[in-house]
């Protein structure tokens, strides 16, 4: 394990690491220091400022939020490593062992722990919490839309609900597979003892963690009235809640950059001996392409957020036409990130399902190379399609045609993914266990999401459908139908390795059918309303759309009940489920060769790979 073995030979071990400062820091001290930094900044900056001026309010709030994040990291001990490096006293082997959580039981989940398995579980709990919060907001949105008249919440609250639901779910879905499985499972899959940068790994999680209360604070600051896209100049003019959005994205972009560098380096540099590129499990390939795409994509989003923050705090004018700014600048920067981000979300989920399919049909993955070509093609083209989100904005109409072509062309590598999955299933005898259900659900859901996307990429059709519920239904079929379905399949598949117990089959089945039936009722109804012309992001609607909306809301409740059932199944199974054998699915990848609990350094002896991971039905070569 890298954390344990790279201590300089000449570094002096401290007599007893249990007396070191590192041992006294945890989530609680992080929160205390974070709150002190936050309130200290707030009161210090507020003093002597005219707080009736919105620029000053924004300045004070943004600085306080960023200082909360910084203070938390100081308080949990995340900066001890860099500080010790600075003064030339590197962490000792004992201290690194302590940071890895050795022998600390449940406490390590609340500490700055560098063990990738702990970080994976932290991500899993964090993602589930975010999905729960985002899902609750979705229920509130659908309840409001059940009947015309916006009886449940007022339009301002509705706007905030839509914005917060959107950004919460986007963040959750970006990390839903690469967070838990990319951290817990992936290093074991490639035969590594740990991630390349264990301390950065823990940092990426705890930085992200600090964004959660910041985003929640938006509720108490008047909400986010802009939707998750936060278009300028609306976001320039929005109330104090917008600061929470900006701070969240800036913090999240930092976390993503760190996590992306870490995962990419781990896969490139730490694969087991014999694991040539054509022997790397497809989930690892997918997760790596996803994070490698995120590394250059998210900084553009961060720049857009920083520019908005500057407009709001120090009165620059990036998006104010009076002083030479333009909302089109924001739209470009946002969507240069925004469309690749869809694939950052999607690819790991699909890759997880490609990992599952061969195991449960006992056939090799059909055309491993086509799968890689599909992922790479999607990633490459995704940076050339951003302006299809801006057809109707009036920006460069002459480019609508070329962007239409590139967008439609992206369906070719996407088709390869279908080809690989269907080819794998073809004439197989599927073992219909819980993870396998997600493979079939994905094929149905993503087919609908993908085909409706082709309509939307078409400029004339988009002219009519743009800004309607049709678009909302399309991207939910894409993101939820592919990424979330893939992640749930992945959870069912890797649950035994992450918890040592099998996921409750009955609860899983009930959840699966409630979610899938509800999901299709919900969003097919939404397609109907959208095709008839119902605009999105509006709290009320004409009676013409009443039936479609009522159907959608019934579907939403079914999804909600299904997700609660899944939550129950997860908690119940983790606490008292059937104890899992080491390799319950008879899979061939390396994570199934280690016992549960997985040893600190994963493998007693580093493995040497001698065959491909999908050699079902043929002898090893």
């Amino acid at each position: 394990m890298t954390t344990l073995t790279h201590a300089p030979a000449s570094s002096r071990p401290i007599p007893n690491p249990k007396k070191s400062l590192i041992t006294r820091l945890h989530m609680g001290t992080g929160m205390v220091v974070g709150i002190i930094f936050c309130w200290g900044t707030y009161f210090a900056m507020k003093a002597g400022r005219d707080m009736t001026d919105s620029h000053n309010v924004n300045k004070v709030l943004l600085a306080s939020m960023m200082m909360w994040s910084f203070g938390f990291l100081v308080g949990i001990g995340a900066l001890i490593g860099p500080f010790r490096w600075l003064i030339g006293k590197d962490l000792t082997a004992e201290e690194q062992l302590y940071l890895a959580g050795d022998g600390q039981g449940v406490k390590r989940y609340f500490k700055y722990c560098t063990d990738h398995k702990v970080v994976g579980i932290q991500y899993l709990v964090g993602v589930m919490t975010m999905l729960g919060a985002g899902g609750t907001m979705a229920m509130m949105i659908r309840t409001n839309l059940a009947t015309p008249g916006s009886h449940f919440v007022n339009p301002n609250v509705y706007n905030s609900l839509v914005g917060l639901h959107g950004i919460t779910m986007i963040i959750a879905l970006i990390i839903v597979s690469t967070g838990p499985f990319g951290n817990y499972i992936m290093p074991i899959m490639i035969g590594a003892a740990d991630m390349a940068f264990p301390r950065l790994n823990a940092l990426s999680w705890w930085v992200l963690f600090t964004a959660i209360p910041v985003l929640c604070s938006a509720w108490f600051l008047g909400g986010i009235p802009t939707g998750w896209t936060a278009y300028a100049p609306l976001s320039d003019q929005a109330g104090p809640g917008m600061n929470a959005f900006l701070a969240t994205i800036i913090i999240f972009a930092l976390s993503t950059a760190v996590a992306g560098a870490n995962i990419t380096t781990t896969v490139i540099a730490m694969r087991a001996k014999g694991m040539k590129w054509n022997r790397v499990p497809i989930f690892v390939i997918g997760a790596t392409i996803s994070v490698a795409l995120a590394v250059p994509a998210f900084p553009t989003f961060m720049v857009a957020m920083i520019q908005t923050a500057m407009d709001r705090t120090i009165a620059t004018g990036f998006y104010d036409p009076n002083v030479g700014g333009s909302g089109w600048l924001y739209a470009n920067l946002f969507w240069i990130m925004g469309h690749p981000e869809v694939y950052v979300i999607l690819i790991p989920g699909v890759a997880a399902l490609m990992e599952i399919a061969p195991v449960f049909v006992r056939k090799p993955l059909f055309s491993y190379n086509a799968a890689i070509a599909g992922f790479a093609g999607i990633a490459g083209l995704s940076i050339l399609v951003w302006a299809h989100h801006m057809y109707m904005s009036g920006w460069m109409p002459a480019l609508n045609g070329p962007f239409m072509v590139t967008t439609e062309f992206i369906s070719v590598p996407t088709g390869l993914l279908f080809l690989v999955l269907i080819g794998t299933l073809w004439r197989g005898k599927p073992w219909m266990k819980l993870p396998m259900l997600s493979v079939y659900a994905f094929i149905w859901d993503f087919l609908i999401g993908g085909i409706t996307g082709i309509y939307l990429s078409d400029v004339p059709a988009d002219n009519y459908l743009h800004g309607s519920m049709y678009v909302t239904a399309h991207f939910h079929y894409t993101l939820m139908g592919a990424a979330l379905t893939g992640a749930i399949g992945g959870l069912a598949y890797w649950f035994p390795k992450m918890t040592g117990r099998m996921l409750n089959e009955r609860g899983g089945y009930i959840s699966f059918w409630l979610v899938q039936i509800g999901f299709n009722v919900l969003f097919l109804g939404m397609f109907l309303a959208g095709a008839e012309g119902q605009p999105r992001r509006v709290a009320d609607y004409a009676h013409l759309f009443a039936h479609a909306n009522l159907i959608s809301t019934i579907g939403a409740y079914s999804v909600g009940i299904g997700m609660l059932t899944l939550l129950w199944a997860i908690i119940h199974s983790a606490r008292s489920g059937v104890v899992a054998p080491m390799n319950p699915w008879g899979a061939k990848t390396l994570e199934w060769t280690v016992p549960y609990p997985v040893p600190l350094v994963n493998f007693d002896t580093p493995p040497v790979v001698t065959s491909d991971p999908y050699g079902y039905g043929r002898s090893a070569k």
Partner: protein
Amino acid sequence: MAHDTEFHIHHDSPEKVGRRERLGVRILIVADGSFLFSMIFSWFYLRNLNVNGAWLPKGVHTFTTSSGYMAAAGLVVAAVAHRIGEKKMEARKITSMVAFLALIFGLYYQWHQMAHMPFIAQDDAGRPFYNGAYASNWVLVAGANMFHYLIGGFVALGLVIRGRRASIDPVLEEWRQRIAGSWFTWIAVSGILCAIATSFK
């Protein structure tokens, strides 16, 4: 996936760790490069759009072309000094100190520029604002330079201190010198690109 466990490699060599760390830093440089690209895109986009003729409103002063290069000079000097130190180990104590001081002076110079910006105006209520898209973009570029100076200064200070301590693994430290070299080279390139961009007024 068939595998065997005949090898017993538990400790990665400093060479291997060094290469890995260099790769990680280079990937982070890609992220920072994307940030830089977005800033330069903003600069030229708003300059060419010139919305309401307010890229550079009449009467608004700008920084001289040379001031952008002056702001980048500290980054360049630090990168050159560090490269010399990488090649001549006996001069390393001096070159790391030169790199650190160059970054501190550069940081001060950038700060001084930001404290004396010629394009801040006041609205009817007497509140300051950045007059024109040139001004907005300039302050963002200057802020990015400041960020590079700060991170570069942290790394340079670390190398100065570590270079004076005996209890450092020499092989791993040699790699860290090279990794720091990647970062210093990048921030120097970034500074020059920013200076070129800001010369287009």
